[in-house]
């Protein structure tokens, strides 16, 4: 297949191709998600993904890397993350070790030099030795730039990093190049496909947002959630699957501290499978509610309502209700 010169990636023929491709590696996409990926590949822009925890933000990056067969480089952000951890660092230890070893050879090099001036002149021919790529420890950002065939660069939970780091990222994100003072500017041969995720711990800067495509992934609707669980957990009875997804969907409508996301649904499905459940009954759901809900107070709210919710989830037709595009607004 001919490579598109402007992006270095194989041109994506259509959004459907992306959806199908992602599904092939087990990621059930939506039209919005596929559109964002399509644009990211076409415009060479990073995608900033926001949304509640556990809806598959990080997983999108992993799936893209599997599908496009590109290495995944992950940079987990945290408070205090700096260039040294994100970009590169000199291998001080190795440099030190080498100077020790080379000490003995020093005489051979300087050898017959008479004056200090002469020996300095001789040494200066080796000056760049210790600040060469050999002693450069590359961290995720630099590694991503150096990948010959491109890569998927995941910058996870960017909202947890400091603002200075966010500013530092701008060069990387808009020009796909990094500058190492001792060596020079290293620009990516094939720009990486960059995915940034944010849980909205703090408001991100406008400058960063401007450089990215913005994608919001919310909770999935019934049909999509069912497909996701089916893709992730094999051997679950279809009726049981319907019922449990309907139950989770109705739990999400209750005003609780932490609404269960896809990750929790999948965990719960695995639990059901492990316990050889054939149908959801009240005691069973109560016993396993802690898989779905992560706060004591949430369990206290949902617990008494379980029988009613179960009855409703039995009545509900699969796919009968679809949630809006952004269900967790407001």
């Amino acid at each position, binding site marked *: 297949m001919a490579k598109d010169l402007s992006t270095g990636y194989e041109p994506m023929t259509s*959004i459907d191709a992306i959806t199908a491709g992602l599904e092939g590696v087990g990621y059930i996409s939506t*039209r*919005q998600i596929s*559109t*964002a990926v*399509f*644009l990211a590949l*076409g*415009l060479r*822009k990073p995608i*900033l993904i*926001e949304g509640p925890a556990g809806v598959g933000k990080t997983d999108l990056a992993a799936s893209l890397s599997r599908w496009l067969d590109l290495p995944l480089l992950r940079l987990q952000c945290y*408070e205090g993350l700096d260039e040294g951890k994100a970009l590169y660092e000199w291998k*001080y*230890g190795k440099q*030190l070790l080498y100077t020790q070893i080379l000490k003995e050879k020093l005489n051979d090099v300087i050898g017959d030099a008479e004056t200090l001036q002469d020996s300095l002149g001789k040494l200066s021919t080796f000056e760049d030795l210790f600040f060469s790529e050999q002693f450069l420890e590359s961290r995720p950002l630099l590694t991503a730039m150096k990948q010959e065939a491109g890569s998927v660069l995941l910058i996870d939970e960017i909202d947890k990093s*400091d*603002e200075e780091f966010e500013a530092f990222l701008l060069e990387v994100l808009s020009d796909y190049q990094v500058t190492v003072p001792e060596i020079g500017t290293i620009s990516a041969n094939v720009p990486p496909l960059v995915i940034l995720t944010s849980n909205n711990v*703090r*408001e991100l800067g*406008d400058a960063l*947002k*401007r*450089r*990215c*495509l*913005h*994608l*919001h992934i919310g909770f999935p609707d019934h049909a999509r959630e069912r497909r996701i669980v089916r893709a992730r957990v094999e051997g679950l009875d279809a009726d049981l699957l319907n019922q449990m997804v309907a139950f989770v969907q109705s739990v999400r409508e209750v005003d609780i501290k932490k609404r269960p996301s896809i990750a929790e649904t999948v965990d719960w499905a695995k639990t059901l499978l492990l316990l050889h459940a054939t149908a959801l009954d009240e005691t069973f759901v109560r016993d396993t509610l802690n898989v779905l809900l992560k706060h004591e107070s949430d369990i206290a709210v949902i617990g008494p309502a379980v029988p009613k919710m179960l009855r409703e989830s039995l009545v509900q037709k699969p796919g009968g209700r679809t949630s809006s595009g*952004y269900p967790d*607004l407001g």
Partner: protein
Amino acid sequence: MERPLTNFIRALRSSDVRVSTGEALDAARTLKLIGYADRDLLKDSLGCVLAKSPDEKVTFDELFELYFSHSDRQNQQTDREDTPSDASSESGEAPDPVDLVESGDETGLAMAIEKAAEASGVDNIRFSTQVAYFAQQMVKQMGGEKLQARLLEALQQGGQEGDAEAQRLIDVRRELTMRARERAEKAFDVFGAGETQQFRDDFAADKKLSALDRSDMERMKRLIAKIAKRLAVKHSRRRRRRNRGQLDVRRTMRANAGVDGVPFNVIWRQKRKDKPKIVVICDVSGSVAQYVRFLLLLLWSMKDVVPDLHAFAFSFRLGSVDDVLEQNDFETAMAKILREYGMGSTSYGQAWSDLKIHHEQIIDRRTTMLVLGDARSNYGDPRIDLFREFAARAKRVIWLNPEGPALWGTGDSVIPRYRPFCAQVTHVSTLKDMERAVDEILSAYN
């Protein structure tokens, strides 16, 4: 084909969605990539590129529906103009409006309306009051004057035939006017509504708070939420400052253990900055109550940035109102506060002594003490001694006075006596003043 896009971006900007030039260029590139053909795809793609927060997405979706529903027709029109069969109408005069309306040619009529809309510049509409004007301009563009002349002629002619003709022309004119109005209203929804809102908000922010009436409350609440968000974004930066020059020996040694303790990687001590702590003391006597409402609403909307926030209310006795505000929705809480503390004659001296006895430990060296009141103490003892003590304990004391400086010190106002202990005494009469004051307080913690 670029025109619909630039217009759409203008509409977004007028509705408070910030679109930079770079993003506009991205949008143009996106269009080149996907084209106009698939509407849903267009919406998703442009949403990705132009709207960068959930709030903006909502605005974007609304505007997209509004804008591209009429833009579709515009495109249709462009398509038709390209075809040679239409060349006559292109080059010639505007088609006769009577024929147009009576022929029932919807597309032709829509085209004429669009053409007139363009000629009269209806997309520049700002206020809803301009709708009638623009509608009239559009009718004129479509040959309204000629129509008027024919109508006069028919009326002069009189008789059964003339009357019928006149009636026919009147119907045509009504139809045209109606259509033009619809189009102008739509233009207002897309381009004007956002800016009108903005204009009214700006106006409200500059209005004297005491002059507001009930009908302004909703707008003010929205406005306060907006201001609170703005301040929160500005002040939620992480608080850390590098204190260069002071070596952190322990961490440096640990970091360099791998290189034989040679300090390649030097770590300096860092000092965390104080988190803001605000103690707000409000005079809730009749004259000041309105201001208290807005200040508390503003501060309470910023709980995320200032978790350490305590409020006291007094007129005669002083008490903490944190719980009331915490447990009720704002309006109920406010009513309760006014009922409990709003009666009685104002005594600042009594308030200070209550504060001293029951809540003194709440004021510490990182506290900003914010007083909202007119300092009219009914000639009672102002207890300057206690106030001075608080001022010494607190980081800063800020006094917001709803009265203008000209009135300070007149009658029973004792503000000049408190003034020496305050870092700042400010006259607040509008929401903007309040925003500035809160901004200033939070800036002191950076």
